[in-house]
C-alpha cells in the first residue's frame, strides 16, 4: 500500500458521522502527506499514526465514561422518584 492508497482510504473515514473519527482521519491524511513531502521521517510517522490510534481508544473510553455518568444521574433521579412514590 502506498501513500496515495492510504490517503484514498482515509477519505472514506473523513465522511464519518463521528466528529472525532473524522478529525483523526484528517490528521492521519496530513501526516501521510507530510511523510510523502519529506517533512516527517518514517519513524516519526509511525509514532504519529500510533498516537492517533491511541487518541481513538481514548475517545471510545471517554464515550463509555459519559454513558456511565449519565446512567448514574438517571439512577439518582429514579432513586429520588421512588423515595417520593415508593413501589
Amino acid at each position: 500500500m502506498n501513500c496515495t492508497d492510504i490517503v484514498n482510504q482515509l477519505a472514506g473515514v473523513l465522511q464519518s458521522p463521528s466528529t472525532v473519527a473524522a478529525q483523526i482521519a484528517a490528521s492521519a491524511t496530513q501526516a501521510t502527506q507530510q511523510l510523502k513531502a519529506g517533512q516527517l521521517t518514517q519513524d516519526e510517522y509511525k509514532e504519529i499514526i500510533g498516537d492517533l490510534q491511541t487518541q481513538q481508544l481514548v475517545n471510545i473510553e471517554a464515550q463509555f465514561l459519559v454513558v456511565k455518568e449519565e446512567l448514574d444521574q438517571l439512577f439518582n433521579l429514579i432513586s429520588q422518584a421512588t423515595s417520593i412514590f415508593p413501589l
Partner: protein
Amino acid sequence: MKKLALIPLILLAGCTTIKSLMSWDVAPFDGGEYDRINHLRSTAVLEQSHCGDVAYMRGVSKEIYDQSIELTLYSSSIPHNSDTVKMIKDLDTITNGFYERYVKNSTVSTAYCQDKLTIIENTTAIIQAAVANKPR
C-alpha cells in the same frame, strides 16, 4: 401482555440494586483533576508556535511529560476513578513518546512537533469533556 407490563416495574425496582453496583465506579467531579487536564491542554496549545526551536521544545517536552505524570498520580489517588485513570495512562504513552524523542534525537522535525502537540491537545480535550460531565 401482562408479563410485558411487569417489565418496567421490575426494571424500576431493580434500579437501586443496579445503581449500587455501578455508582461505585463513577467518581464525582474533582476540580483539581480538571485544572491539571486544562493546564496540560493549554501548554500543548500555547507551545505549538515554538516547534521550530528544537532546544526550546526539548524543555517543553519534559514539562508536558511531567504534567502528564502529575495528572496520573493525582487521578490515581481519587477513589473509584479507574475509567479516567485508564484514559490518562493512554495520554501518558503519547507524552512519553514526545519526551523520549527529544531526549534521544538531536534533530526533531517541526511537522512531528506540531502533529504531536495537536494530538496531545485533542486527546486532553476529549478527556476534559468527559471529566466535566462527572456528577457534582
